[in-house]
């Protein structure tokens, strides 16, 4: 019995050196968050982009669209949705209900680059990694994944100015990008156009809904799939970039239903740091 005490003592000692822990005292908020200054960061929240990869012939995709809608309704100021029609479920048929082609070269490229071909619906949540080397998130996990980002502090601020010339259906958008923290990686700015309320058929399980309302449909990019490079090496805190883009709207699109979606992503991790949206008209 005599050496039990000493062994306990040794174990505790080893435990003390071995195990470390950081007890955090209140307040739990960081006090070094930049919350004043020219950029007005106090009001900047990180916004989250849900990319819903979908297709009009995909039987389960309407469920994913409903999940995206619910998340958007819960966090209207912090969540932006973009529906990317790509893959075999989006391939139009020669005849029948599904002859319309929702696909875009940008969407096809993203679908391939992120390896999303296998099973739809699937999504990207601000392109954060869901597993090493993977970005895809099942729609049943979108809400949980968005929740993990809602409390993040914005690292980039985007300010959009849109000037729509109705006469020639031209959208002119100017984007001001402010880096709020140092980001030691190349960053790119992407400007996309989406359209709401497109009424076209959609499969839902074994039914075909002829008057389905397609929301947030990716139509075209203003500056290519991967956009415009903002910084050659590092986006230091305080760096600001201003870029302008314009696009003629196709006659097939309803201008008052169109939105401009702008985001900045890191080249190394592909993560979307910030996203903003504004209506075209």
């Amino acid at each position, binding site marked *: 019995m005599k050496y039990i005490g000493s062994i306990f003592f040794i174990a505790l000692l*080893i435990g003390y050196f071995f195990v470390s822990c950081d007890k955090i005292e209140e307040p739990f908020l960081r006090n070094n968050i930049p919350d004043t200054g020219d950029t007005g960061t106090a009001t900047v929240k990180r916004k989250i982009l849900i990319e819903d990869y979908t297709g009009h012939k995909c039987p389960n995709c309407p469920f994913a669209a409903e999940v995206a809608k619910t998340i958007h309704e819960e966090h209207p100021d912090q969540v932006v949705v973009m529906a990317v029609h790509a893959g075999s479920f989006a391939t139009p048929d020669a005849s029948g209900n599904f002859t319309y082609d929702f696909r875009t070269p940008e969407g096809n490229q993203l679908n391939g680059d992120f390896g999303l071909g296998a099973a739809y619906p699937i999504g990207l949540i601000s392109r954060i990694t869901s597993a090493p080397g993977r970005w895809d998130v099942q729609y049943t996990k979108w809400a949980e994944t968005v929740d993990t980002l809602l409390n993040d*502090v914005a690292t980039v601020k985007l300010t959009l100015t849109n000037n729509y010339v109705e006469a020639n259906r031209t959208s002119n958008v100017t984007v001001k990008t402010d880096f709020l923290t140092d980001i030691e990686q190349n960053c790119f700015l992407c400007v996309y156009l989406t359209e709401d309320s497109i009424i076209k058929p959609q499969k839902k399980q074994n039914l075909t809904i002829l008057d389905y309302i397609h929301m947030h449909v990716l139509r075209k990019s203003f500056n290519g799939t991967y956009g415009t490079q903002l910084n050659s090496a590092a986006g230091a805190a305080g760096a600001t970039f201003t870029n302008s883009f314009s696009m003629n709207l196709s006659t097939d699109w309803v201008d008052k239903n169109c939105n401009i979606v702008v985001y900045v992503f890191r080249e190394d991790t592909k993560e979307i740091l910030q996203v903003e949206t504004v209506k075209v008209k």
Partner: protein
Amino acid sequence: MKKTLLLLTFFTLAIGGFVFSQELNSNGNIHGNFSFEGQYYITDSAINAYEVKEKILSNSFLNLIYTNGNFTSGIRYEAYLGPMKGYDDAYAGNGLPYRFATYKKDELEVTVGNFYDQFGNGLIFRSYEEKTLGIDNAMDGIRVKFTPVNGITLKGIVGNQRIYWAKSAGVLRGIDGEFALNDLCSRMKDSKTKIILGGSAISKYQKDKPTSKYKLPVNVAAFAGRFDISRGRFALQGEYAYKINDPSALNNYIFKPGEALFLSGSYSQKGLGVIVAAKRIDNMNFRTDRDMIGNPLTISYLPSITKQHTYSLAALYPYSTQPNGEMGFFGQVEYMFKKGSKLGGKYGTDASVNFSRINNIKKESPGAGIAMDSAGTMGYKSEFFAFGDELYFQDFNLEVTHKFNKHWKAIFSYLNLIYNISIIENHEGPLIYANVGIADVTYKFNEKNAVRVELQNLMSKQDKGDWFTGLVEYTIAPKWFFSVMDQYNYGNEDFEKRFHYYMAALGYTKGSNRIALQYGRQREGIVCVGGICRAVPASNGFQISITSSF
């Protein structure tokens, strides 16, 4: 075999780069096991079994273990080409994710590479693999076990955890000690009371996230203490665990410490067994990645105390442990009516009654003007012994096993379940009340041939309504079995969804080799093992499974 030996030797030298000398004798042996499971998928959109582009998906693995004296090493090859439905797509691929080497020298045992282990019941650390759930959080690092004297076991671990084909960014460091007092203390050597005490501590390191607006702890530690006391027919066990502030995605970034308590007691004598258990879990989600959700990268293992049912309809509504908070208890009495008694008949009758109930924990706001569970606060206050008002799960069940004569044997079961679908499955729905009756009758023609019939009926006014399952299985011992089954959702309110899930299977076993073929529909549902669950999508098709060991 020579090639395999060479591979193992090479690997053993390669993994650690360490050198030690130990006498190898010529009696080394290699053993292992193999498993292949593959399915050809048929599109059956009526039951939500959608097209599988690859048509065929399979999961397989091979374990190879080499033992020679005090030295053991091993590897595991795994292939998910592509992962079967219900397994995370992140498993897609093949390779050698598991390799280890262990040697033992006197009081010291050293393992490098991968290992599975747990401290106590696993409340603060359990590294394990559960193929049916797609869980594998194997450690990759170093484990040292030290037995200075008989009765004391000290264990230290350090390493990363496996996540799919990669390793966690976070690192785990831990220590565990177990003390068998009867071996240590001469006065207790012959005591009828046996006492074992244990204590453990673990810490995870995960780098800070500069974008978080909270001050995040990068080192999070947890501690646990346990006892195991037995005297004659009585046994009592318990473990308490405490975890410091660990804001995470699952607890909505609150800073409250976590706690868990498990207690169980049992009494057994010939023909009678009684077990009672109770538990409380409060904010005990613990992972190497604070932002991880789902099943990967768990450090703590919070076992369920509810009974794990095996009949398909009894397991239709299984309970899943709620790491953010739950309180419950469990009781079971098993009694054997003696041979020759009125109820026992010629062969005796086994009867078992079991009850468990799980509620939420009682919570209050952590301070004036602070909403409960708000991120960046203490989250809530909770009295340790207070049950909350919300019922998560309740299960009352009876089981009677009786052998009538040389030919007939039967098991009858009844279950009454209450299942909180909105908490357990995390989607809206009413409380589900279900009654299940099961008859499992076997008729043995002779030593070799037997037929077994299973009839199960589940009645519920909620969810998908009533179900019936019928199964007939014919066995020619010890090699063959054939079975047909139908699961019929006859009480679904939606007439169009009153599906039949039919299935036919046959299997052949010889020695340690087993091949089984199956064709039919599988309903979508949840598979749980020990309170940890996985959603299984519906499927239809041919399935083949091969298992073998040597």
